Structures are given as structure tokens and as C-alpha cells.
């Protein structure tokens, strides 16, 4: 148990990526979206409104530093520097702490816009499951927000909740979702909404000799229930898509599918980037406005 702990199963992998076949030198507009979330920070570099480079890392104790780090990492090896970027928009929990951003826009607007980019114009309902909160967003064919709701006070349906849980059953966070699906029969969801109590409950189950898989299933089922509560409050209209870190968790997504009878679209790129992508797209629009192009 103790040595297992040192594995730090909650730690999801950080990464950066550049689109190989793209080049920024003859680009008209280079923009960046910096999404400083409560748990993870992401930067997206766009050339003329197309994703060029991106990076994802954990948010540190000082958000300015994180913003700088994550952005420089995205630029690494591209030959670009922050000063070369025409317009930077900051978003996310720490959006006010992006020193080199010209403007901030909320993650609500950015996720809708980003989802529209990732999944296409048929998106009407965006479910963003972030580190600390969970947002249900209704948007139009342009990716513009019509209405939205955020979860109240309970983080059981969030990334942080999952981290605590992954640690508990010592399964790497990228795999808990898959693990939770490897049960032939779905158990009762854990009854508690509070992360700490849900964890305690899960612990009790483990001690009663439940298999990790079964406990994981119970925990994910509870998460899905909670998220559905939120979704029904804004109302689900097709197409439904998920963004944010937890969107990669098949255990949650497939259960949502089951509960809602709606199949979420599959992303053409990492949905954790949605917020940053949206910000970068807004940045492009803002730059065009400054240049009098719109």
C-alpha cells in the first residue's frame, strides 16, 4: 500500500505537441489561448485559426509562472516566442493571472467555442468536466453560449474527485475509467456526493473485499448520476459532447451515454484542449477586429 502510494496514481501525464505538416512563417495571424485551470493548464497556438501547437501540464502554486511555463513549452522547438504571438486570450480559473494575455474570456464561452471547433457545428450541448467543477453548456450552431450551469459545491463529479479515487485504488488515472467498465454487472453507485465521504465509502467497500473494478464501477456510476442531474437541469439537446480532462475517462462517458440515451460525438483531438482552443479562436477574432478585418 505505502509503496503503491508513491506511484502517485492521480498524476495524469503532461505533454506537448506540434502539428508536423504546419508552418507559421507565412501565417497572417498567430494567436494563443492559455487556459489556466484549477488542476491543469493548457496552451494552444493557432496559425490562421488552425491548431498548430499545444501543451498540457499541471497548474502550479503560482499561476503566472504556470501560464508562462505552459506557453513556452507549447512554443518549444517551433521557433516562435511569446512576443511573436499577435493576440493572447486567457481563460480558466486563473485567467486573470496570464500576464501576457490581452484579454480574458470565461472558460464557459471558450469551451463552447472550442467544442464547436473540435466536434463541428452540430454541437448543441457541451459538458465540461474540469478539475474542480463541472459545467453544462447549451450553445448554437456557431458555438455561442445560450445558457449554462455549473455544479454546486460538490466535486464528486470532477477531476479532483477522480484523482483522489485513483490514488485510493492505486490505478493510474488514465486507466480508472477502463477499469470501471471491466465489471459484468453494474453495482449500486456509492451513495455519497462528497468526495471525502465517497472515498471513505469506497474504502469501506474495498475492505469488505470488493474488487477494485467493482468499486471503480460504483464510484464512476455515482459520478455519472451527478453529472446527469446537472445536464437535465440545462436540458440535453443533440449533439452532446464532452470536454475537459474527464472527457477522456471512458468509464464516465459510456455511463453518461447509457443514462442519457445520447451518444456523445467522438473528438478529433484531445478534448482537454477545448478551453484553450476556444480562447485562441477568440484571440484570432479579436486580432482581426483590431486589424479592421471584421
Amino acid at each position, binding site marked *: 500500500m505505502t509503496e503503491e502510494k508513491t506511484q502517485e496514481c492521480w498524476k495524469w501525464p503532461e505533454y506537448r505537441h506540434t502539428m508536423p505538416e504546419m508552418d507559421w512563417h507565412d501565417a497572417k495571424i498567430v494567436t494563443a489561448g492559455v487556459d489556466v485551470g484549477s488542476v491543469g493548464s493548457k496552451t494552444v497556438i493557432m496559425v490562421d485559426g488552425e491548431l498548430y501547437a499545444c501543451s498540457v501540464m499541471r497548474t502550479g502554486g503560482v499561476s503566472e509562472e504556470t501560464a508562462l511555463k505552459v506557453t513556452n513549452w507549447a512554443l518549444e522547438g517551433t521557433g516562435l516566442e511569446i512576443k511573436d504571438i499577435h493576440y493572447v486570450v486567457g481563460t480558466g480559473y486563473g485567467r486573470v493571472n496570464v500576464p501576457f494575455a490581452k484579454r480574458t474570456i*470565461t472558460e*464557459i*464561452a471558450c469551451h463552447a467555442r472550442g467544442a464547436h471547433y473540435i466536434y463541428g457545428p452540430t454541437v448543441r450541448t457541451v459538458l465540461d468536466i474540469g478539475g474542480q467543477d463541472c459545467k453544462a453548456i447549451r450553445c448554437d450552431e456557431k458555438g455561442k453560449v445560450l445558457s*449554462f450551469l455549473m455544479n454546486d459545491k460538490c466535486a464528486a463529479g470532477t477531476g479532483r474527485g477522480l484523482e483522489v479515487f485513483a490514488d485510493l485504488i492505486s490505478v493510474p488515472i488514465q486507466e480508472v475509467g477502463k477499469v470501471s467498465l471491466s465489471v459484468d454487472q453494474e453495482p449500486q453507485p456509492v451513495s455519497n456526493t462528497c468526495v471525502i465521504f465517497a472515498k471513505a465509502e469506497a474504502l469501506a467497500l474495498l475492505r469488505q473485499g470488493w474488487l477494485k473494478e467493482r468499486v471503480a464501477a460504483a464510484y464512476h456510476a455515482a459520478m455519472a448520476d451527478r453529472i446527469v442531474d446537472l445536464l437535465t437541469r440545462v436540458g440535453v439537446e443533440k449533439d452532446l459532447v464532452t470536454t475537459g480532462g474527464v472527457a477522456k475517462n471512458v468509464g464516465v462517458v459510456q455511463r453518461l451515454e447509457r443514462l442519457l440515451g445520447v451518444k456523445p460525438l467522438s473528438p478529433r483531438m484531445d478534448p482537454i484542449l477545448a478551453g484553450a482552443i476556444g480562447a485562441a479562436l477568440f484571440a484570432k477574432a479579436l486580432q482581426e477586429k483590431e486589424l479592421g478585418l471584421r
Partner: protein
Amino acid sequence: MVEEILEKFREWIDNRHEYAKTWKERTGNKVVGYFCTYVPEEVLYAANILPVRILGSHEPPTITEPYIFAMYCHLCRDCLAQGLKGRFSYLDGIVEGQSCLHLRQAFNAWRLHIPIDYAHYIHVPHGVQTPRAVPYLTQEIAKFKQSIEKWTGKTITNEDLDRGINVLNRNRDLMRKVYEYRKLDNPKITGLEAMEMVLSSQMVDKEEHNKLLEQMLEELPYRKLDREPGVRLMIVGSEDDDRVFMKNVENLGATFVIDEHCTGSRYFWTDIEPREDRLMAVASRYVYRVPCPSKDWPEFTRIKHAVNLAEQFKAQGALVIQNKFCDPHGIEIPPLREALRSVGVHTYPLEFDVTVPWGQFRTRVEAFLETLTGLEELF
């Protein structure tokens, strides 16, 4: 000038306890605390007693745990906490005018656990839409008047009552006049300033408050706020004295142009119509005033009123606030939002607790403002 007056309001709020103590020493008269705006302050003013509203301090009310189960709203627990911490030690008495169960509990706990010379509960009727309410409340107020007379040993004459009625009506009239300036395209005062005006009037001698309001109204037409009004907002719902929240929201490129809650317009919107029977005149006012939802049935008259305000003050959006566990307001959230929506006012609900988690709320409010202004040009 206006600035100094507003500064004075702020000062009164921040030093409310010192104010009350010095008032007591200066006048040698009694100070009474009240919980809900259904307490007819007219009667207290008639008896030369200073009524002050008991409100919380927005610190987690730990010490109330033994007395009030935490499923009741933070306001009632926070109020009691103030008493238990001895911050209202100067009070000679407490009075409650029946509204919600929550504040009744604060009143009873206070009566039972904090030494106090005088405690009176007025059974203000809930059936304010029935024709039987006025005569009934008239008798309840008469009973209240008698108990005050017994307590102070002084009889309250009609002249005394007229004095009380006049000072309150005057205060109401002046504050409504100030609110008029919020209708302008560029309002003359911010939502925070308006809140501080109303709050302070619940804490100080209204004679003094009226003097400042009169001066302020002379200067106000010439005041120019050095800020863009931005999005015109309404704030509507449970009791709200969270000045930090008001300030933060108005710093996001918005201005509260109107409110509908009991630490705002609801407190002073309705006047007393003079009548020969003074007590019946007072009773009528408290029966026909803009109601607390706990008394507003079978018709939703408060919602109609809120919609009118939103239209008169040209609000673009409304923040619908509910103090967590405040059932009377919670119950009305969907009908209220529907009604506002029907006149084109978008709404966003926020659940308030003893402290407001600004980080979370900031995102919600900003996003709400974005949906109002639309970020149109960026699509």
C-alpha cells in the same frame, strides 16, 4: 459632497455598534434590535426607541451549532452568532415581526440564551392577501404598543405615532427619489452605494439619515460617475447585505440598477397611507407592502412587482439570489425567472452562503455577462 455622504453611510455600517452605543449615551433612550422588516418601526420611533436591524458579519457562525441546526439559512445563524459573541450587548430588547421560520428561530434562541430585558414576537399574519389581515394585525400591533408602553412606562399618543409614521415615510420617500437616478442611462449611483444607503438607514436614527439624504438629493443631479455603466443588472431574491459581492460584480463591467430584496427596495418601497386610526394605518402598510415571498400567496404579487422594477429600471439581466435553505425565495425561483424572461430579462441563479466563493461566482457572473453582451462580434 455626495461622496462624503456616501462615505458617511459606509462609516455608519462599519461602525454600527459604536453608533448605537453613542446614540444611547447621548439620548439616554433604549435601543431595540429587530430581525425582519415586518417589525413596525413606527411604533418604536413613537416611543423614542431606536430600532436597529440585526444582521450577520459573514464569518462562519460556528458558535450557533448547539442552538440552530445548520439546515437553516446562514442569515439566521449569523445573526444569532452576533448576539452570542456579545456584539449587540447594548440592546435593551429584541422584536421580531413574523416572516420566515429561520429568523423566528434566531429570535427564540436569542431570547433563551442571551440576557435581554425585553423580547416581543408580533404574529404578523401570513394571509396578507385576505381581507381579514388588516383588522387582525391592527390588534397584534396594539398588543405590541401596550407591551412597549408597559416596558417603558410611557404611553404612546397619536402625536407620537404620527412622529414615527412621518420619519419613516420621509425616509422611504427620499430613498425612492435616490433610486430614480438609477433609471438613467448612466446611473448616478452604483448598486453598492445604493445598498449602503439602505443598509445604513436600518442601523441609524432616521432623522439623521433623512438629513443626509436631503443634502444628497440636491447634489446628485450634478454627479458624474467616472465609470462606464456596462451591463444593467438587477439583483433579486433573499436578504442580501454582501457588499463584497456587489463591488466585485460591478468591477466586471456591470452596474446594478435595481434590486428587489429586504435589505434594498423591498424595505422602503411602500408608504403608510394616513388614517384616523393610526394603528390601522400602520397595519395596512405592513399588510399591503411589497411582500416577502413567505406571505405572498395565492398570487405571486412580488414577482409582478419585480418584473415592473426590471422594466422601469431597464435591467438587461437579473441575478436571482437565494440564501441557501431560504425556502420562501427558493420556491419562487422558477416562476420568477420565467416571468422576467417573458419581458426579455435574462436571469442567472446564485446560491448564497455565509461567505460567497468569489472564484466560482466570478466565472458564472462573467459568463452570464458574456451571454448578455454576446461577444457577438467575435463569431
